[in-house]
C-alpha cells in the first residue's frame, strides 16, 4: 500500500520542476510580488501628490526644466521593449527558441537605451546645478529653454524656492528608483536570456520567461505614470 501512496504523493506534490508551486503558482506569486512593488512606489506617488497640492506654482515652474523630447523618446523605448518581451514569451510558447532569443536581446538593448537617455538627462540637470533637494537654476522660459536662478515671482504668483527643490527631490528619487528597477529588470532578462541560449526553456516550460516579462511590464507601467506626472502635467 505504502509504495503506491508514496508515488501518488510525489506526483501530486511535485507537479513541475524546481519549485513546488508549478506554473500557476509561480505566476500567482509574481502577481503578488508586483502588488508589493505598486505599494513601494505608492508611497512616492502619494508624497508627490501631497507636495504637488502644497506647491502647485513651484511644481509647474520646475517641471518645465525637464526635457520633454528625451522623456518622450524614453516612453517610446520602454513601450517598444514591453512589446518585444511579450513577443519573446509568445515565441517560446510556440517553441521558436531562436526568435525568442532575438526578442530578448532587443528588449535588453532597448532597456540599456532607456538608461543611456536617462544618463544624459541626469548629467544635463547636474550641469545646470540641479540636484535632489537643491535646484540653483531652472528653465524660466518655456519657449527659449532659458535657464536662470529660481525667480521669486512667476506668472504673477509668488514662488517658494523650497517647492522647486522638492519637485527635483521627487524627480530624482522616483526616476532613480525606477531606473534601479530597469537595471534589475535587465539583469533578470539577461539571466533568462542565458537560460534560453542554454536551452532551459521550451514550449511547455517557460515560467521564468513569462514572470520576468510580467516584471518588465510593471517597470514599463510605472514609467507610463511617471512620464506625464513629471514631464507633461502642468
Amino acid at each position, binding site marked *: 500500500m505504502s509504495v503506491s501512496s508514496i508515488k*501518488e504523493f510525489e506526483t501530486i506534490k511535485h507537479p513541475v520542476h524546481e*519549485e*513546488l508551486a508549478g506554473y500557476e503558482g509561480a505566476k500567482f506569486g509574481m502577481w*503578488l510580488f508586483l502588488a508589493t512593488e505598486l505599494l513601494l512606489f505608492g*508611497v512616492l506617488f502619494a508624497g508627490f501628490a501631497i507636495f504637488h497640492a502644497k506647491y502647485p506654482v513651484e511644481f509647474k515652474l520646475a517641471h518645465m526644466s525637464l526635457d520633454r523630447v528625451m522623456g518622450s523618446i524614453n516612453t517610446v523605448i520602454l513601450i517598444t521593449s514591453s512589446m518585444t518581451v511579450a513577443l519573446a514569451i509568445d515565441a517560446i510558447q510556440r517553441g521558436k527558441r531562436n526568435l525568442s532569443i532575438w526578442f530578448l536581446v532587443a528588449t535588453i538593448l532597448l532597456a540599456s537605451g532607456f538608461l543611456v537617455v536617462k544618463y544624459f538627462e541626469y548629467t544635463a540637470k547636474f550641469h545646470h546645478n540641479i540636484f535632489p*533637494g537643491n535646484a540653483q537654476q531652472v528653465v524660466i522660459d518655456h519657449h527659449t529653454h532659458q535657464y536662470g536662478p529660481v525667480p521669486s515671482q512667476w506668472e504673477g504668483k509668488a514662488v517658494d524656492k523650497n517647492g522647486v527643490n522638492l519637485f527635483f527631490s521627487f524627480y530624482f528619487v522616483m526616476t532613480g528608483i525606477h531606473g534601479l528597477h530597469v537595471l534589475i529588470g535587465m539583469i533578470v532578462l539577461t539571466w533568462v536570456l542565458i537560460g534560453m541560449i542554454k536551452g532551459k526553456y521550451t514550449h511547455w516550460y517557460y515560467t521564468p520567461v513569462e514572470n520576468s516579462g510580467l516584471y518588465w511590464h510593471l517597470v514599463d507601467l510605472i514609467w507610463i505614470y511617471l512620464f506625464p506626472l513629471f514631464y507633461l502635467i502642468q
Partner: protein
Amino acid sequence: MAHAVAHEHDHNKSYLEVGRSIWGWLTTTDHKKIGIMYLFTIMIYFAVGGISALLVRLELIAPGKTFFSPDTYNVLFTLHGAIMTFLFIVPGIPATLGNFLLPLMIGAKDVAFPRINLASYYVYLIGSFISLVSLLSPADTGWTFYAPYSMKTNGLVVWLTLGAFIMGFASILTGFNFIVTVHRMRAPGLGWSNLPLFVWALYATAIIQLLATPVVGMNLVLLIFERVLDIGIFNPAKGGDPILFEQFFWFYSHPVVYIMILPAFGVVSEILPVFSRRPIFGYKAIAYSSLAIALVSFLVWGHHLFVSGMSDWARYIFSFLTFFVAVPTAIKIFNWLATLWKGSLEITATPMYYTLGFLFMFTIAGLTGLHLAVLSTDVYLHDTYFVVAHFHYTMQGGTVFALIAGLHYWFPKITGRWYNKKVAFWGWLILFVGFNATFLPQFLLGLEGMPRRYFDYLPHFQTWHLVSTIGSWFNGLGYVIVLTNLLVSAFTGEKAEANPYNALSLEWQTSSPPPETNFITTPTFPASIYDYGTEGKEEDTSKTKKAV
C-alpha cells in the same frame, strides 16, 4: 521493487536525521529546518532585546541618574524597541511555527517556493547584521525613527534603517510564499472551510506582510536619502513635512501589530479546542474575523497621530475605525470563551495554562486599547506609560505568550521529545507574575501622567517604577527558565509519541518528528478537524475522507 523499498526506508527517517551536518542545515530548503533556524536566531535577538529592556528598567528604579547616562539610556530603549520589533516579533510566529507547521497542516511536502523560503532567512539574517552595524555608533531615535530628529541625530541611523528595510523583504518573501502555499498546495480535497484556524491566521497575516511592508520600506529609504542627500521631503526647514514620515510609518506600523498578533490568535485557536475537548466555537467567525482585521488594520493608523495635527473629521473617522477593528478581535475572544464553555478543560496541560494566561492578558490589552481610541482620553494618555503598558500587554502578554504556548504545544511534534512539565509550570508562574508586576504598575504610572521614554521622573512616581523594575527581573527569570527548559529538553527529553493529545489536525497524523517529506503515506483528514468531544463517533467512517 528493491529500489522502491529503499526509497521508502529513506522516507521513514525523520527530518532531523537527514542532512545533519552544519552545511546540511545551512543549505536546507526543508521548511521545518528553516523554521527552526529562524527560531534560534530570533531567540538570540530576543535575549539581546530582553537584556536591554532589563537595563532600561534598572535605570528607572530610582529618579535621576542611577546607572547610565541619559544618552546611554536613549540608546538602550532604541535597541530594545528596534530589536524586539524588527528582529524578533515581526518574524516571530509566522517564520518559526508558521514555517514549520503550515505545510504540515495542509498536507503538503513543503511551502510553494522552498528556495525563496531559505532566501527569506538569509535576507533576514543579512538585514539583522546590517542593522547591528549601527551599534558602532548606536542610534537614539527609538524604534519609530521619527523625523526630523532621526535626520539630525548622530549615530548610524542609516545602517539601522537599511537593516530594517532589508528585513522587510524577508517578511514580504515569507508572506507571499505562504499565500501561494495556501492557495496551491493544500492536499486534494482540503477545502478553505476545513483549513486549520492557524492557517487562516497566517494567510491574513501574509496579506498584511505583503501590502504594508513596502510602504515602510520606501519610507525608510526616503529617510536614508534625507540623511545622505538632504532631499528635504521630511525637513520642515526645506519646505518638507516630518508628519508625512509619521503617517507613512504608521501606515505600516499599525498593521504590523496585526502581523505580530494574528498568528498568535491562530495558535490559541488551535490549542483551546484540543484541551477543552470541544469543537471550536464559531469556526467561520474566527476565520473571517482574521481577514476582517487584516483589512481594517490598514485604516486605523491615524490614531497614533491624534495629537500630531490632524483635522477633526480625520480624528472622528480614525477613532471610529479604531473602535471598529476591536469588533473582530472581540468576536475571537467571545468564540474562544464559548469554546471553553462546558468543555472538559485539561487545565494542567502546559499549553492550556499558557493559553489561558494569553486570554487573561490579551483581554486587558484589548480593553485598554479602547481607552486610547477615545479621542478625549487619548489626548491625556498619549505618549504616557499607559501606552507602553497597553502595547506590552498585546505584544508580550499576547504574542510572546502565544508563541511560548505554541512552542510547548508543538514541541513533541518538532523535536519528538517532551519538555520537563514541572519546570514549564514554574516558569509559567514566574513569567505570569513577573509580567503583570512589570506592566500593571505602568498603567497606573501612565494614568498619573508619567511620560514614556523619559530618563528621569518626579519622586512621587517612584513606588510604581520600583515595583515595575522588580517585576521585570521575574519576567526575565521566567523566560530564562522556560526557554532553557525547552532547549535542554530538545536534546534530553523523554520520547514523545506521534499524536499525544489525540488531536485531529493533519500535523498530528504523521510521526514525531515528521519525516523529511512530512507524510509517508497520503494523509487522511476528518470532515472537521475541530470535531473534539465526539470521540465515540470517531470510528464513523462517513466523517472521514481520504485525502486523495
